[in-house]
């Protein structure tokens, strides 16, 4: 296991939004340690709070409860230059290639702005530095792209410019929020390979947010996957173990539900029958374990009463399920 120091640590982090006069707990009691050079995938369906968590980690949204530690220091205590240093160390890549770049700016302007602002390049070597960054993200020849506007680039190219922009400030941590979901399948792999290269050559740490477990498996094969549901962490484990031996019933249901690109495999795959197809609304969360209305292993009197805490099972595995931690096993 990775024994590098913790880069980012979330301790019982929560985020509540107020909608009208109701409160929505988008993220509830999430604790996670991300070490330097690690790839952690945050996986879950829409509304599970993974994007909100990503934004909190990137410093774009403050948590309403709990702390986020950066190199051991609580973010809320950081002021002025310290906070700025943190801001630049953690960058975000967005999902929608059509919305992540300002349509009124050229590529040169988009990448040049942070370089000039933070004096990371002088006007003399600005172009060279921009081209260097474009080459790192496999946009060659870079000179051809400098004067282009975002609408003149393809989705894949736009995502790469997004990454280049993030790299301008020499971050050590990148939050990729569904960064490949809106890109064609045939280009997805090369984008992921490029990101993997960043990890290998620059020691970049990643929090990779996705709803696609297959992509998570391939990108974070050497890393870990954390599964979220309705704002809570249900299971965390090294990727290979999570895929082959999922412990939480929700993880099992997810893995079984994914269609595979192989007709023989996918048509004979066993499915987990959930008790209900309805996803509860965040405004009316079920009591106890949030998954209990749908869980096939639901145990009345336990699962609907007490919320299971995230328990460490050793070997880097964590599960929030009464039946698993009680040794009954949800097989």
């Amino acid at each position, binding site marked *: 296991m990775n024994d590098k120091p913790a880069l980012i640590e979330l301790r019982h982090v929560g985020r509540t939004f107020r909608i009208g006069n109701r409160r929505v707990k988008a993220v509830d009691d999430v604790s996670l340690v991300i070490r330097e050079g690690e790839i952690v995938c945050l996986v879950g369906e829409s509304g599970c709070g993974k994007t909100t968590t990503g934004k909190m980690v990137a410093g774009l949204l403050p948590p309403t409860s709990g702390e986020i530690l950066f190199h051991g220091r609580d973010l809320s205590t950081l002021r002025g230059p310290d906070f700025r240093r943190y*801001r630049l160390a953690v960058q975000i890549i967005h999902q929608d290639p059509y919305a992540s770049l300002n349509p009124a700016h050229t590529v040169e302007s988009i990448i040049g702005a942070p370089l000039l602002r933070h004096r990371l390049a002088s006007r003399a070597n600005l172009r060279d530095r921009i081209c260097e960054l474009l080459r790192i993200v496999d946009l060659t020849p870079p000179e051809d792209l400098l004067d282009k506007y975002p609408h003149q680039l393809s989705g894949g190219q736009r995502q790469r410019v997004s990454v280049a922009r993030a790299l301008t400030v020499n971050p050590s941590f990148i939050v990729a929020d569904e960064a490949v979901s809106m890109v064609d399948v045939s280009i997805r792999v090369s984008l992921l390979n490029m990101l993997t290269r960043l990890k290998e050559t620059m020691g970049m740490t990643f929090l990779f947010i996705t709803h696609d477990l297959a992509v998570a498996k391939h990108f974070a094969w050497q890393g870990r996957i954390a599964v979220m549901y309705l704002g809570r962490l249900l299971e965390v484990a090294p990727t290979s173990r999570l895929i082959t031996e999922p412990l939480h019933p929700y993880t099992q249901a997810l893995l079984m539900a994914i269609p595979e690109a192989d007709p023989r495999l996918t048509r004979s795959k066993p499915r987990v029958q959930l008790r209900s197809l309805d996803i509860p609304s965040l405004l009316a969360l079920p009591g106890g374990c949030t998954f209990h209305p749908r869980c096939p292993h639901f145990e009345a009197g336990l699962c609907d009463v007490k919320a299971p805490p995230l328990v460490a099972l050793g070997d880097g595995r964590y599960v929030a399920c009464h039946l698993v931690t009680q040794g009954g096993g949800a097989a």
Partner: protein
Amino acid sequence: MSTAGSVVRRASGGLGTWLRPVIRNRAGLIGLIGLVAFILLSFVGPLVVPLSTQTDLSKVYSPPSLQHPLGTDFQGRDIWAQVVHGGKEVLIIAFISGLISTAIAVALGSLSAVLGGLFDSFTMWVTDIWLTIPHFPVLAVIAAFVKLSDVWALAFILSLLAWPTLARAVRAQVLSLRQRDYVEAARALDLGTRHIVFSEILPNMMSYVAISLVFSMTSAIYAQVALVFLGLVPFATNNWGVMLSLAWTRGTIFYRGSLLNIMSPVLAIALFQLSLVWLTRSLEEVFNPRLRASA
């Protein structure tokens, strides 16, 4: 780096890229031609066409002729000359008032949206009050105290009354643009509030701002003409509003032969407004790089 200013510069600097979208849009082209025509008419025209203030009672309400293309008015003076000379003040007030009110509205509206908190609440409170004040009675009251015949004073006061509505609209636009991913990226890159407002948000609003500018010009013209028409502004010079007012008070509507006397200023004002409005049709294209650079 692209700021709002450089977007404007780029939009208007490269004549090819700027003219093409205007020419492509028929209405926009006509609007542009009309605008240019009126500017030439009102600023260059007076150098060419002399204004006669001599009354000639033998020529009262004479029909159009070579000598008097639009005929003569109730005092036998040439209408065409009056139209030529009467535009300058109207246009100047329109441009200045439009520019000032748009500048105030954009500045306050966008800062309000970006800074939020107390500044936002206060600004919104001010605009709320301003919006409930009926403009005309206020203008009438002000007219009693301030010499509104001064072009600059009038322009300034008109713009002070016009900015609140625009500011609210700008604020709404900025609030929505603030949610965009690229603005969030700019925050993560710590590019600063000033950069976010002027480099990220405003360039994407330029067409909206330009169109708002045009419309604040049109409302300034109407306000100004109405003021003159109602006699709230003493007329020292002759402009379209004055022409209209005089024609009205002289009872030209009761006499068929004097149609041109009252219709000329009306047409002049209406055609100018129309040119402005039609010009806005192509402004959207001018400022939107996606539409502009599709060649």
